[in-house]
């Protein structure tokens, strides 16, 4: 599901089409053109992003010769690139992009207009984890009667601190058992 694909156009289900005697009412048409450009990057799962963008009719970007979407981890490291050739009178695009789990970066959208590459937008992302964390440090807390946060400090690696001891002293700032700096 959601394998990286070549960019393609977004589409809404088409208007009612008769299938034999069956009329399907899809409801009112939604706009196919927009008065302003938007790009949105949505995290789908730990390894997949969905990028979509629409241009405003009549603008230079609406006539872009090509679009390029780059996944970047930082300014210098380019992870992957997707490219779509401009399609006349098409104002919306979307593509699926592969990334690493539990990673952060951004997607840069570029457009080729009159032979020049123009940066259109940078969109940040953070993907979720797909496995348990390797961080075993521990902090414990509770809420006071007003819902405020009360934290205790405990960093015990490989040493078990009985829960009863923690419950008895959640607000003291220290807990029984061996401690090490977090």
């Amino acid at each position, binding site marked *: 599901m959601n394998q990286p694909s070549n960019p393609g156009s977004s589409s809404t289900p088409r208007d009612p089409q008769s299938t034999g005697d069956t009329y399907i009412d899809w409801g009112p048409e*939604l706009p196919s053109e927009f008065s302003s450009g938007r790009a949105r990057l949505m995290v789908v*799962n730990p390894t997949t992003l969905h990028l979509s963008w629409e241009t405003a009719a009549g603008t230079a970007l609406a006539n872009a010769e090509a679009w390029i979407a780059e996944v970047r981890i930082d300014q210098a490291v380019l992870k992957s690139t997707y490219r779509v050739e401009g399609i006349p009178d098409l104002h919306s695009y979307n593509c699926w992009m592969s990334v690493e789990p539990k990673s952060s970066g951004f997607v840069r959208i570029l457009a080729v207009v009159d032979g020049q590459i123009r940066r259109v937008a940078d969109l940040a992302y953070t993907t979720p984890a797909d496995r*348990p964390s390797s961080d075993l440090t*521990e*902090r*414990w807390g509770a809420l006071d009667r007003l819902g405020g*946060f009360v934290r205790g400090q405990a960093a015990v690696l490989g040493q*078990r601190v009985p*829960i009863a001891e923690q419950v008895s002293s959640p607000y003291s700032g220290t807990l029984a058992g061996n401690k090490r700096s977090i």
Partner: protein
Amino acid sequence: MPAGSLAVVLHAHLPWVHHPEHPTFLEEDWLYEAILETYLPLIGVLDGLERDGIETHLTMSLTPPLCEMLACPGLRGRFEARLATLIGLAASEADRLQDTSFGPAAEAAHADLLRCHVLWHERCQGEILSGYRHHQATGALVIVTCGATHGLLPLITTTEGRHAQIAVARDNYLKHFGQPPRGIWLGECAWQAGVDHALKTAGIDITFVETHGVNYAEPRPRFGHYRPILSEAGVFAFGRDPECSRQVWSADEGYPGDFHYREFYRDLGWELPLDTLEPLISDGPRRNIGLKFHRITGKVALDKKEAYLPEVASQKAREHAAHFVNQRILQANALSASMQAEPLLMAPYDAELFGHWWFEGPQFLDGVFREAHRRRDELRMTTPVDWLERHPVAQICEPCPSSWGDGGYWDVWLNGENTWIYNYLQRAEERFVELTTHMNAPSALEERALGQAARELLLAQSSDWAFIITMATTVPYAVKRTRTHLTRFAALCRDLESGCVDTEQLGRFETLSPIFSEINWRHWQRHGRREGVSGVSVAAFD
């Protein structure tokens, strides 16, 4: 001293479906079926447990759209008419089949409907929520809320939009239950970084996440999903236990697949002559009507299903309940030994599983609470609120972004079939935040228009539509609903932006979507709230 605790959580939800513009509407059947097969029987179960002095600790989420439909006079009237018709039909079937192998099933179906009639008219006086309020007041039940229209918060693009889903839900809960909610069932248990800030702002500090929402948390929780964790913003996240789920949900090894249980797909709506079904199916094709007289029998074709035997099925439900409790005790004992601490087994389910999809489900639940009461020295039934009273301390971890949808993240709501929805939702959300933030001293008419625009936006945000499109069930209906609400929203915004509200159009929209009478459009105003990190990044360009 019990080795562990079990928290059963039932999530009761239906999307807002009410079409007063039609005398009957097929999709409204979803509500009527759920009332007859789940919501009323669950009240019956709770009443019985109370009557017999069985200590019950159950948690239920009743979503705002469901509460609004249960309280809607128009839908209540339609339900009563349907109930009366079904009772008549069941009585005639019981007569017709009394000397056949289907006699017991038909007789039991008629008796069940008569019980529902008593529960509806005498017990609840047509107001189901009063039954649930009663059990919340006695302490047997904890009711939590859900996002206003079951919106998937990680895919809502603005901080204001997420805040509004929660704030509208809180206001609605206050209207129906007279007090603010402490807990919330996030739509699809969808957690994303920053969601906890929106919950905390609304005074909510309890929620539920999928198993890996806890197990993949940062840092790694010492006790995995067998203890709730506490987010940095101060929200307790309770993780689902997959073992509890497997025994109930699994199509292959779960209890509901037992061959003695009632077969869902053999329904009289497909078998009786159309003129007999006329009052129930007057507006379209044949469909389920809820009268079913066959048992699962085995892995056989539908036409090979045999007669349902209610007494045998009831006995099976009691056996399965005892087995379930015993398995939980064994599980808790093993966990307690390795954890050296009391484990919490969180068992969340869709409420509609019990009664609608699995007919004997309410009997199973009744059996679970009775058996757990009998063995209360070995297993403690609890709710998240009770648990926190006894265990106020939790490990501070940031839950992993996750959902309980297929795949564990957002794939169900964001795929090739439904991504188009978000182009429009994101723009609509952005537009409404701007509109409300800059709205200055609106007139009474503009207040109404703003409220209705908020309703239309919320209804378009319902995660049910994207879900239905993915599941390929009633796709045209889901698409139409999305388009319709977005179109109405846009029309109202145009009116407000131009300073000229079409009164006739507004009145029509209000009549067609009479949800959230208490809605407060100011929830969408930008107030400099702390920005969380959603699963969406947006940029504008020329």
